[in-house]
C-alpha cells in the first residue's frame, strides 16, 4: 500500500475526520504513514485471530459435543456384531412341531469370465477332471463363449469347491448362492413344493408363499405333523402296493379347526430333483385331483336329507327295485329289494334309497346344500394346485339322482374332508388350512348344519363301522379276560366308485375311498384315504372295494396316530357308550338282522 491516506474503501477517512471536527482530547497520535500501516496491520491481525478463534472454537465445541455429550456418533450406530438372523435369504418351512421341511443352505457356484481365462483347453480339462458330471466339450464351449459371465456349475459341494480352488485357474470364480434343501425328502413334497435353480417357488407352499419366504426370511409354520404325514403315507403306500393300485391320496384334518395335519398324494417325487420323475408324480391327488367319490358322498346326501326336515331317521323308502330314468338304471351293489329306513340305507350304502331321500329335498335344495358345503367351488387351501370341482350344469333330475350317491359330481379330497369335518363336528364349517392356527384362538367358521343333524350323522357313521361296509376293517376284539373292547371310536363311510373311461363307467377301474372321524362321540380328527384303481387280491377274495382297501388302511393309520394325538381309547362294550350311540328305532331291525 503506497498511499496511506486512502484506506481500503478509497476514502480518506482520516482526512474527513480531521476536517469535520477536531479531537477533543489531546491524544498522542502518530499522524505519519507508518502509524496508518500499523493500525491497519493490527486490525487485520484481529480479524484473522477472530476467524481462527471461531474456527477452533467450533471444532472444540464439536469435540465436546461428540465426546462428552456422545451425540452425533457415526451413522447407523457404528459397527456392530452381526448377531440375529443368518443372512440366508429364503425362510425355512417347518411343521407344526418345528421339524424342518425346507431350509436354505449357503453353497458356492462356479462361474467363469471367458475373457480372463488364459488357456481355455487346459482349464476345461482340469475342471472336467474335478467335476465328473460335466464333460470336457461343454466346459470348453462355455469357456470360449464371447461373454463376460458363464455359469459352469451351480451349487458345488464343499469338496468340489476346495478342489477347484486348488487348481488355481485364472478367470474362474465362485459365487455364493443358496440351495434349497428338503430334509424330509418325498414326505410332504406335494404340500411344500419345490424351488427352481434361482430359488423361486415353483409348486406348493414354496410357490404360494414365495414372496413371504423371500422377503421376510422368517420360517413358515405349517399345520402338517411330520409323524402323521409319515404314517399316512406309509399305509397308503403299503395299500397301493398290496392292491397294485396306480396311486392314492390321504388327508388327516383337525375337525375342530380345519387344520390339515397330513396330506399325502402318491406316487410322489423328490423335491430336490422334481424333473427326474414322471410328470404324474407331481400331480397332487389330494387337492388338485377331482374325483367322483361315490358312496362317501352319501354322508353329505344323508346330512342334507335330515337337515331339510323332509326326512326323519325312522322314515322308510322304497328300495324294492332299481330306478329307471331314460336309458339308465340305478341299482344297488348289494340289492336288498325291500323298504329301508334311513340308517339302513346309509349302512347298506343303498343307491336307490339315497336317490329317494334326495328326491324329498329337490334339485334346488340339493344344489344349495352342496354350495353351502363348499362342493361347487374350489377349496380355499393355501397351495396353488387346487382342483376346480366338476359340477352338473344344467342340474336336472338325473343329476339329482346321481349326485345323491356321489356320481356326476367330482370334488377334490380336500373339499370332501372339510365337508365331513363340518358334518361331524357339530355343524360348523372351517376352511381347510395348511398353516398352523395360533393356539387357543377360535378357528373362524360358519354354521352349515344343526347340532342335532350332526349328532345323527355321527351315529350313522358309527353304524357303518360297527355293522356296515367298514365292519371288517374296524372290528374290535373283546379282551378275553375283561370283556372290554377298546377302540378309538371311529365312524365313517366307505365309497367305491367306478371310474369313467371316456364316456362310460368301467367295472375294472375303481376308486376306493374311506372317510371317517374319530372319536366319533366328539370328533377331533377326520381322515380320508383314497386308493386309485386297486385290483383285488387273493387275500381280499378278489375284492377291491373300499371295505377291503381304504378302510383297513384307515384303521392301521388311526391305530398308530391315536397314541400320538393323545386320543383316549374307549371301551365300546360298556353300556354307556352303546347307549350314547344308539339310534332310536334301530334296535328291532338290528336284532332281526
Amino acid at each position, binding site marked *: 500500500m503506497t498511499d496511506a491516506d486512502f484506506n481500503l474503501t478509497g476514502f480518506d477517512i482520516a482526512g474527513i475526520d480531521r476536517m469535520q471536527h477536531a479531537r477533543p482530547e489531546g491524544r498522542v497520535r502518530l499522524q505519519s504513514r507508518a502509524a496508518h500501516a500499523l493500525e491497519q496491520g493490527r486490525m487485520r491481525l484481529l480479524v484473522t485471530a477472530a476467524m481462527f478463534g471461531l474456527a477452533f472454537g467450533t471444532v472444540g465445541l464439536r469435540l465436546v459435543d461428540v465426546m462428552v455429550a456422545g451425540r452425533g456418533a457415526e451413522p447407523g450406530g457404528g459397527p456392530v456384531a*452381526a448377531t440375529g438372523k*443368518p443372512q440366508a435369504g429364503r425362510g425355512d418351512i417347518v411343521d407344526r412341531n418345528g421339524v424342518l421341511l425346507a431350509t436354505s*443352505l449357503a453353497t458356492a457356484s462356479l462361474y467363469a469370465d471367458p475373457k480372463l481365462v488364459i488357456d481355455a483347453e487346459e482349464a476345461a480339462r482340469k475342471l472336467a477332471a474335478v467335476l465328473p458330471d460335466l464333460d470336457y466339450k461343454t466346459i470348453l464351449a462355455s469357456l470360449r463363449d464371447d461373454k463376460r459371465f458363464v455359469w459352469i456349475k451351480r451349487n458345488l459341494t464343499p469338496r468340489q469347491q476346495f478342489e477347484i480352488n486348488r487348481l488355481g485357474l485364472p478367470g474362474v470364480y465362485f459365487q455364493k448362492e443358496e440351495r434349497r*434343501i428338503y430334509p424330509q*425328502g418325498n414326505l410332504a413334497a406335494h404340500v411344500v413344493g419345490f424351488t427352481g435353480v434361482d430359488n423361486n417357488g415353483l409348486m406348493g407352499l414354496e410357490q404360494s408363499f414365495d414372496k413371504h419366504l423371500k422377503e421376510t426370511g422368517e420360517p413358515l409354520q405349517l399345520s402338517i405333523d411330520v409323524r402323521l404325514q*409319515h404314517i399316512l403315507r406309509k399305509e397308503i403306500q403299503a395299500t397301493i402296493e398290496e392292491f397294485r393300485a396306480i396311486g392314492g391320496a390321504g388327508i388327516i384334518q383337525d375337525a375342530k379347526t380345519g387344520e390339515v395335519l397330513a396330506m399325502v398324494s402318491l406316487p410322489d417325487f423328490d423335491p430336490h430333483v422334481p424333473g427326474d420323475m414322471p410328470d404324474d408324480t407331481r400331480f397332487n391327488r389330494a387337492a388338485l385331483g377331482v374325483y367322483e367319490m361315490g358312496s362317501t358322498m352319501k354322508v353329505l346326501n344323508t346330512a342334507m336329507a335330515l337337515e331339510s326336515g323332509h326326512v326323519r331317521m325312522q322314515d322308510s323308502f322304497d328300495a324294492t327295485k332299481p330306478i329307471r330314468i331314460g336309458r339308465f338304471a340305478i341299482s344297488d351293489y348289494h340289492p336288498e329289494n325291500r323298504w329301508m329306513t334311513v340308517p339302513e340305507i346309509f349302512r347298506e350304502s343303498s343307491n336307490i334309497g339315497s336317490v329317494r331321500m334326495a328326491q324329498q329335498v329337490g334339485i334346488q335344495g340339493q344344489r344349495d346344500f352342496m354350495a353351502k358345503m363348499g362342493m361347487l367351488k374350489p377349496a380355499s387351501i393355501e397351495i396353488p394346485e387346487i382342483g376346480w370341482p366338476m359340477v352338473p350344469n344344467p342340474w336336472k333330475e338325473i343329476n339329482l339322482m346321481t349326485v345323491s350317491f356321489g356320481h356326476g359330481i367330482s370334488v377334490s379330497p380336500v373339499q370332501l374332508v372339510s365337508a365331513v369335518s363340518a358334518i361331524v363336528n357339530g355343524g360348523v364349517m372351517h376352511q381347510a388350512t395348511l398353516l398352523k392356527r395360533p393356539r387357543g384362538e377360535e378357528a373362524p367358521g360358519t354354521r352349515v348344519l344343526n347340532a342335532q343333524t350332526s349328532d345323527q350323522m355321527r351315529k350313522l357313521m358309527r353304524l357303518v363301522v360297527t355293522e356296515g361296509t367298514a365292519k371288517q376293517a374296524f372290528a374290535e376284539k373283546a379282551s378275553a379276560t375283561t370283556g372290554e373292547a*377298546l377302540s378309538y371310536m371311529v365312524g365313517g363311510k366307505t365309497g367305491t366308485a367306478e371310474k369313467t373311461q371316456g364316456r362310460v363307467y368301467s367295472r375294472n377301474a375303481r376308486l376306493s375311498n374311506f372317510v371317517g372321524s374319530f372319536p366319533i362321540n366328539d370328533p377331533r380328527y377326520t381322515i380320508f384315504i383314497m386308493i386309485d384303481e386297486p385290483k383285488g387280491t387273493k387275500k381280499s377274495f378278489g375284492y377291491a372295494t373300499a371295505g377291503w382297501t381304504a378302510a383297513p388302511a384307515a384303521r392301521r393309520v388311526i*391305530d398308530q396316530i391315536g397314541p400320538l394325538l393323545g386320543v383316549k*381309547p374307549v371301551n365300546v362294550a360298556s353300556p354307556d357308550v352303546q347307549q350314547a350311540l344308539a339310534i332310536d328305532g334301530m334296535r328291532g331291525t338290528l336284532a332281526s338282522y
Partner: protein
Amino acid sequence: MIGKSTIVWICLATMASGILYHTSYRVQEQAERLSSINRQIVAEQEAIQVLKAEWAYLNDPIRMERLVAGHTVLQPVKLEQMVTLDAIPEKLPADALVAEAAPPAGKATPAPKSPAPAPTPKTPEGPMLLAKYGARR
C-alpha cells in the same frame, strides 16, 4: 530462547498425538477383530443351518422307523397298553403311593419304578431291555 510454557505446550502436543495414534491403532485393531468375529458368526450360523438340516434329515421318520425296528423291541403303542389312573386297582395305600412317587430329595434313585403296574407283561424282554437303556443313559 524457548520459553517454559512453549516446552510445556510441545510436551502436551507430543503426548496428545501419541495418545491419538495409540487410540487410532486400537480402533483399527478392534474393527478388524469385529469384522473377523462377524465373519465367524456368519460361518457359525451357516454351520448351524447345515446341522439343523442334517438333524432333520437324520430324524426322518422312515429312517427312525428302520432303526427302531433294527435295534430295539419298541413297537407302536397298542390300545390295551393305555390305561387311565382310574383303571388301576388301588392296592397300595394312598400314602405309600405318594412316598414312592416323590422320593426324598438328594437320594439318587436310578430309574424309579413307575407306580403304575406294567399292563400285563406278556413279553418279559421288553421291559427288561428298556431298563437297560435307562441304565446306560
